[in-house]
């Protein structure tokens, strides 16, 4: 009887502890099993998603749709190159490193974000294999086109 009443107590504590430390454990264990460096296109995909949100907040539907398409295409290439974790990367939360979250969203902010994305893509161009260079080129030129739309 004593053992029985202790059992649930212990396990509940354990569950609580596990629940509390689970995010920590995930955060700590993710780097070791992924020794290859993060795919540089993944950050561009995150940036594109953030731009889409910003453009939506600013009421710029065309830009939002185009940047959403960029995010999809970039993420598809990231997943293709590393098929081990497609689901986790596809639903990757917008990391804080790439772009600020949409605050109010003004056309000026959108233009600045598009220009930054253009530069980020251009900076990567020399480092990627040819099949990625085409994708990157279209994304960069697409951002320039969107800036022209808003000019």
């Amino acid at each position: 009887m004593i053992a029985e009443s202790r059992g649930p107590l212990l396990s509940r504590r354990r569950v609580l502890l596990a629940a509390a430390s689970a995010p920590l454990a995930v955060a700590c264990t993710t780097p070791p099993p992924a020794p290859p460096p993060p795919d540089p296109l993944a950050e561009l995909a995150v940036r594109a998603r953030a731009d889409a949100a910003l453009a939506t907040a600013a009421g710029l539907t065309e830009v939002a749709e185009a940047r959403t398409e960029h995010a999809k295409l970039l993420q598809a290439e990231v997943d293709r190159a590393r098929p081990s974790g497609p689901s986790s990367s596809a639903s990757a939360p917008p990391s804080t490193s790439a772009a600020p979250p949409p605050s109010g969203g003004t056309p000026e902010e959108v233009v600045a974000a598009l220009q930054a994305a253009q530069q980020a893509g251009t900076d990567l161009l020399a480092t990627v294999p040819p099949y990625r260079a085409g994708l990157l080129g279209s994304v960069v030129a697409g951002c320039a086109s969107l800036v022209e739309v808003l000019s």
Partner: protein
Amino acid sequence: MSQPSSSTAPTGGKPTGEAVQAVQDALAAEHAAVWTYGLVSAFVEQGPKTAEGANAHRARRDATERLLRDASAEPVPPAPAYLPPAPVTDATSAIAALVAVEIDACVAWRGVLERTEDAELRRTALDALTGCAVRATRWRKAGGLLPAGLAMPGTAVG
């Protein structure tokens, strides 16, 4: 700010292998663009937009010919004439012809990006692709076409 051209527009690079043909295709697209800007001059109000486009394509054509000669390739000559997607008879069809020729050039320059490891040639191709995409957008805006922007310039879907 239409292009990220900090100092001088990149125009160099060393095509090898299949990149040579890709650059030839891009040169053919530039020939067509130069011709089309001449064709539409009677129908589109001449101003900064037409001048910028015509000058940009002439400069790109000349630079691309140089680039090919430096790679010991004989640059493709221009065709005697080009066929626009629809007969050019007024401002609307003239703008459609300009949009089409800019989009064709986007495709050709993306083709170069996909076929070279040469960093300088990539910069050149990206600069050309970006310039064409911006001009295509400008003309679509001028013609009241929606959406004015190209999400993925250089791909078949635009």
